[in-house]
């Protein structure tokens, strides 16, 4: 089973990496690097990324056939994300056990979500669509490795 874990954003992540916080950030990177190393060695970690502040992002709202683009920052949103992991484990309990060991300080709340696998969709994923989906995945893997 694959799970996605969302790391929430806050004022600090929204400010980006500032030179005056370099020492603190370096310490955080070292802790994260060690935690990631453990997950990689255990064959659990598939991906992990950090996201730039929402000030560098945009939102598209789809409504009535029209699309509205709003540039960041999205300060009104309480549910910002600053990064994520993708992990492969045997159960939700195992995903939770890994994340309890993540090096976070007080106030951080991680969200753990199971990823849909092709087999979950039942007849909605016709053999043709499934074949196409598998081809997309093969090409994405090739692109990531290029």
């Amino acid at each position, binding site marked *: 089973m*694959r799970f*996605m874990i*969302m790391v929430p954003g806050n004022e600090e992540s929204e400010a980006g*990496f500032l030179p005056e916080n*370099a020492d603190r*950030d*370096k*310490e955080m*990177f*070292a802790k*994260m*690097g*060690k935690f*990631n*190393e453990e997950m990689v060695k255990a064959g659990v970690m598939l991906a992990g*990324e*950090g*996201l*730039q502040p*929402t000030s*560098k*992002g*945009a*939102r*598209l*709202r*789809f*409504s*009535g056939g029209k*699309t509205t*683009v709003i540039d960041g920052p999205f300060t009104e949103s309480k*549910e910002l*994300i600053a990064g994520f992991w*993708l992990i492969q484990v045997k159960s*939700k309990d195992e995903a939770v056990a890994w*994340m*309890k060991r*993540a090096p976070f*300080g*007080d106030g951080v*709340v*991680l*969200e*753990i*979500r*199971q*990823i*849909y696998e092709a087999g*979950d*969709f039942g007849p*909605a*994923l016709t053999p043709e*669509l499934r074949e196409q*989906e598998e*081809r*997309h995945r093969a*090409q*994405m893997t090739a*692109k*990531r490795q290029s």
Partner: protein
Amino acid sequence: MRFMMVVIPQGYATAAPGTMPDAGIVERMTRYNESLTKAGVLLGLDGLHPLSMGARVSFSGGKPKVTDGPFAEAKEVIGGYWMIQVKSKEDAIEWARRAPMPDGDIIEIRQVQEMSDFPPDVQKAAGR
């Protein structure tokens, strides 16, 4: 540059465990994924089961606390994402515009941090 297109479907915060997209959406999404693949921009994509099947880990006082879903106060819940490689934020927005989203959905576009964005000592601290 890599961008994550994060999907926030309307109403997904209250989706019941086991909720599945219907055949029409799966077909439209697969066609859109095909266009991203053909253009050579697609790096990854996934759909997420409802939050009601998920869990939260809260860190406080050195002890992580686990709470299982559903979460009544959740508003903007992520339904899935695409990871794409394009030349600019504008390109990312153009791709997002073409996504076959139902009314009320939101796509949030976020640039991904690259290791090369950081100074050498930070890269070293991260084990690169």
